[in-house]
């Protein structure tokens, strides 16, 4: 991987009237890297994506994509990136194949080249058999794959994916992930927003966690877990209506303790050892689970458990 930034943002701000969607974020993405934006709904991820894909103008701050300013070089930048939006925006009036061919025309790609590329992309996204079908008849996963194929028609150097697997079944998600790995191996820079932690862990070399328009943490998935959580988590359930009463008794065993309505979470380094000590104290949970700490723990720690929307 080359360490040369392909995209740089500093103090990027996006306001819509009174509300501030993105509140001064700075980050730098290297060529060939797979970079994630993690955050709850309304954190400002999509607004950030729209600015870096040179579709919406930043309210303030500086942004450079391929060394160009999106304010003045929008068409040139958009010509070199691919965008997979959150919602499929396929042409319902066109067939699967024509969706790709027409999209390529927006990039001034000659028809002969497009015919070849379309066939390759349909094979890549396993849609060859549906080439002449109407888009409306495709399943959700197929539409998603078609949207990805469409984003690749101009052989982009950066592929921006806004929640690429939301609403897909596990099979479809894994197929998609596999395709994204292949692109990454081919040197495409991937920028992904997601609120699926496993997706972020699987796909992203580096990521930032956004909340309320700001970046609250950044690093590799491992680094984030190390800095913001413990190595392991012990989940205990007791036969009680409220777990609040266990706070004082369990607090000494953990670096951090979290009481949820249905269980208690103990953030520790050695889960099995902690569990042994708890049993020694005659504390008898109804069930106990020791697991590795995940990005989800980091995420909830940083962005809270309150429902956002």
């Amino acid at each position, binding site marked *: 991987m080359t360490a040369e930034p392909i995209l740089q943002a500093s103090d990027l701000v996006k306001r819509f009237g009174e509300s501030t969607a993105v509140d001064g974020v700075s980050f730098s993405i290297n060529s060939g890297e797979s970079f994630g934006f993690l955050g709850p709904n309304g954190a400002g991820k999509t607004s950030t994506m729209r600015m870096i*894909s040179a579709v*919406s103008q930043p309210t303030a701050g500086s942004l450079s994509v391929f060394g160009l300013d999106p304010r003045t070089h929008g*068409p040139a930048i*958009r010509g070199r990136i691919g965008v997979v939006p959150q919602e499929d925006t*396929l042409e319902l*009036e066109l067939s699967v194949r024509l969706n790709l061919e027409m999209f390529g025309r927006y990039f001034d790609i000659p028809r002969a080249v497009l015919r070849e590329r379309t066939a390759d992309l349909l094979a890549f996204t396993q849609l060859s058999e549906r080439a002449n079908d109407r888009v409306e008849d495709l399943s959700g996963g197929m539409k998603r794959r078609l949207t990805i194929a*469409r984003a690749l028609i101009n052989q982009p150097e950066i592929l921006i994916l806004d929640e690429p697997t939301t609403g897909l079944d596990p099979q479809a998600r894994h197929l998609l992930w596999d395709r994204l790995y292949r692109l990454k191996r081919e040197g495409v820079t991937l920028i992904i927003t997601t609120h699926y932690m496993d997706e972020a862990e699987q796909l992203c070399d580096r990521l930032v966690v956004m909340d309320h328009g700001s970046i609250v943490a950044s690093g590799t998935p491992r680094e984030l877990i190390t800095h913001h959580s413990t190595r392991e988590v012990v989940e205990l359930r007791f036969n009680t209506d409220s777990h609040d009463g266990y706070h004082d008794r369990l607090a000494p065993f953990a670096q951090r303790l979290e009481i949820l309505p249905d269980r208690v979470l103990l953030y520790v380094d050695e889960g099995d050892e902690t569990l042994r000590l708890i049993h020694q104290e005659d504390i008898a949970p109804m069930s106990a689970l020791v697991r590795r700490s995940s990005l989800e723990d980091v995420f909830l720690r940083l962005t809270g458990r309150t429902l956002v929307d």
Partner: protein
Amino acid sequence: MLTRTLPQFGSRRSIRIFERNLMVYRSQWLMLISGFFEPLFYLLSIGIGLNHLVGSVPVGGRLVSYATFVAPGMLATSAMNGATIDTIFNTFFRLKISHSYDAVLSTPLDVTDVALGEVWWALARASLYAASFIVCMVLLGDAGSAWVVLCWPAAILTSFAFSAIGLAVCTYIRSWQDFDLVTIVQLPLFLFSATFFPISLYPRWLGAVVAVSPLYQSAALMRGLSLGVFQWVMIGRAAYLAVLALVGLRLASNRFRRILTP
């Protein structure tokens, strides 16, 4: 050339929107064909039907058959309807239902290209339909003179004005229910723009109100051209339509920008 000198109205990339619409209509050619029948229906029903009842109408110091009088008005109306249906209904679908413009804007195309491209499409269709209308006029003997061929560019200009206004109007439409409002405006425009009868039948003050109607300006322009009666005011009528077109296109682009790339 137009796009190079006036970049704020879109670039040559706008032609891709035209290409896209052509691709869609290739599989819906029946809808394209239907546009050719509309003028024939107009001419046959209103022209031939009323012609027998009304007889002759005095225009510019000469008496012409009612069919000859009304045909240019019908041509103007047909250009208006074609342009507004194209832009208001189809664009609404792409703008607010299928969101296909959102995808287009992630390519090198700009909002101005989208707006201009839709206008190109409306103009291309209008030029086909207007040509077939004029051929029908000639075949049915409703053309006032050989100058009727000039009705063709006039119809395209009319379509330019109405498609640009239609695009702008389209951006204000919130749901399918709002289309009733479009009809509420369009129907009186059709009925009271002196397309069926001379504007001189109105009281003077009402005539001044009707003169604001772009459909009246278009109908009056085409009537003059069809009859080969040339007056300076016709340049004013054409200019009025051209200004409406450019203002509409500019407004549409600005609205597209606000909606699509906030």
